[in-house]
């Protein structure tokens, strides 16, 4: 068996990716910075940084703190808005033979819907709805932590777009399967998980939090066991495809997520340590398949 015999294709929300490897939103920009390091054509899909209906300035610096085997970020979804994105980034990505997944952010349901609607007539493949954003109307509670709100925002966004819809789940909940079921009721065609956990660090010499925002999103290899557990739990109770993420840095990591039930795998924070991480993960998956005589990932998906 060699690399050409492998069938790496996966279907996510009705869209076929040539392989399961994509990028985690916010860790790959729109791919521009990575074209110097890797061949973007090799990726199953590029998931771009979160876009909102109008430009967002983001949070004050410091926005980054390293943690043991991971990191915290409080970027605050800084982005130039959906119109700039459509003008600059879609034409760039369309030069490549890879699917485009657009991660969308909003502070209110109409804001989310506006982005989804504007993307409807563009040449993108999938929308990934980030429901971890704080809801300004509900006083900062994230849409993703309340099943009713999660269902409602999913339903409304779905109504405003023709594109297949993936909903990205927050791990900062007591039972992630409740949220998963709620968004599927709202019409989600697929799920991605997990977003960042919430963490903090303190500079004991300055006696102050390292992040200007005090708390931030925790990501990287350190969170992998939590992410894997959540993918496993959700995969047991839903039938839509899942993109798994959280600390994936190697092919072995990706195989773990696939065995737990993921169809796609997204590489996030690992891109910061190794700009070729996506390709290394893809090659690692192939090597595992060859070594274990697996022709299609279907043979191992969700076997746990």
């Amino acid at each position: 068996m060699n690399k050409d015999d492998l069938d790496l294709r996966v279907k996510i929300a009705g869209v076929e990716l040539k392989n399961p490897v994509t990028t985690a939103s916010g860790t790959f920009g729109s791919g521009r910075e990575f074209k110097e390091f890797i061949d973007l054509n090799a990726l199953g899909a590029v998931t771009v940084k979160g876009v909102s209906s109008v430009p967002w300035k983001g949070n004050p610096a410091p926005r980054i703190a390293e943690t043991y085997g991971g990191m915290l970020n409080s970027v605050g979804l800084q982005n130039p808005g959906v119109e700039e994105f459509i003008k600059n980034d879609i034409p760039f990505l369309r030069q490549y033979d890879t699917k485009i997944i657009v991660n969308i952010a909003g502070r209110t349901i109409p804001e989310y819907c506006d982005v989804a609607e504007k993307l409807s007539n563009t040449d993108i493949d999938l929308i990934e709805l980030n429901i971890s954003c704080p809801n300004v109307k509900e006083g900062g509670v994230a849409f993703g932590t309340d099943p009713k709100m999660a269902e409602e925002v999913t339903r409304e966004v779905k109504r405003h777009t023709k594109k297949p819809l993936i909903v990205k789940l927050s791990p900062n909940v007591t039972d992630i399967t409740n949220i998963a079921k709620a968004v599927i009721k709202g019409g989600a065609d697929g799920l991605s998980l997990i977003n960042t956990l919430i963490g903090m660090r303190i500079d004991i010499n300055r006696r102050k939090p390292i992040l200007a925002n005090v708390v931030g999103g925790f990501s990287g290899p350190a969170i992998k066991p939590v992410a894997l557990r959540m993918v496993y739990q959700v995969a047991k109770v839903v039938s839509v495809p899942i993109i798994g993420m959280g600390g994936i840095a190697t092919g072995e990591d990706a195989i773990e997520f696939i065995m737990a039930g993921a169809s796609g795998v997204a590489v996030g924070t690992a891109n910061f340590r190794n700009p070729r991480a996506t390709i290394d993960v893809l090659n690692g998956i192939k090597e595992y398949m060859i070594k274990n005589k697996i022709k299609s990932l279907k043979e191992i998906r969700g076997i746990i």
Partner: protein
Amino acid sequence: MREIKKLIVLENKLISSNIYSMVLQSKGLAKISKPGQFINLYCREGSRLLPRPISICEINKLEDTIKLVYAVVGAGTKEFSNIKVGEKIEALGPLGNGFIIEKDKTKNIIVGGGIGVPPLLELAKNLNGEIEVYLGFRSKSILIEDFKKYGAKVHVATEDGSEGFKGNVLELMKKNNVNGSIIYSCGPKPMLKAVAKWAKKKNIPMQVSLEERMACGIGVCVGCVCKIKDKNQSDWQYKKVCKDGPVFWSDEVIWDE
């Protein structure tokens, strides 16, 4: 394609308390580097996930080497200090935009503070005209003789007075009635801010090299931001130190924090 390279360490020696000078065989990096750019150094210990950005202190295109000068401040730089000559270190670069060298300026002023001094050395090598260097340290100076080698006139201030002028670098500049056609600067933010304010009053254009906590160093994470005024100065945006900087014109920077 660009990649993280494993570079051989040719020198890694203590030059002052807690400060090391590291020379790397650069695998072509020297040829394309400019003063004010930096490189990412990666730790071997996997729990230290993020790259450590370190400025390029000197570039030797002929021998294909670069020199870095770094302070041991935490676990990552501690790890670097233990690397032996002949071993390899993972590095990516050059990153960022360096200083904009204004060749027509007749009198260059360089202002450096503490561990912000190293990138100014390669800059000094590349300037035309007269160069006056003002360096401030807490107690012990670094790289003074190196600046002199390149024909610069060097003035030192130390906070505790153990070397040169007792006080900060701006006080020394004021005392010497400094004037010039351009200022290039790198150092702690309070120093940059104070010198920028003074430069504005004197109407001297000034470039500053900023520092911020980074995750990628290549412009994707949007972690390393500073507030930069728009062209018409009516609003501002968070710009990336790693990609849009680290060097900015001082009058573009909003110094509030």
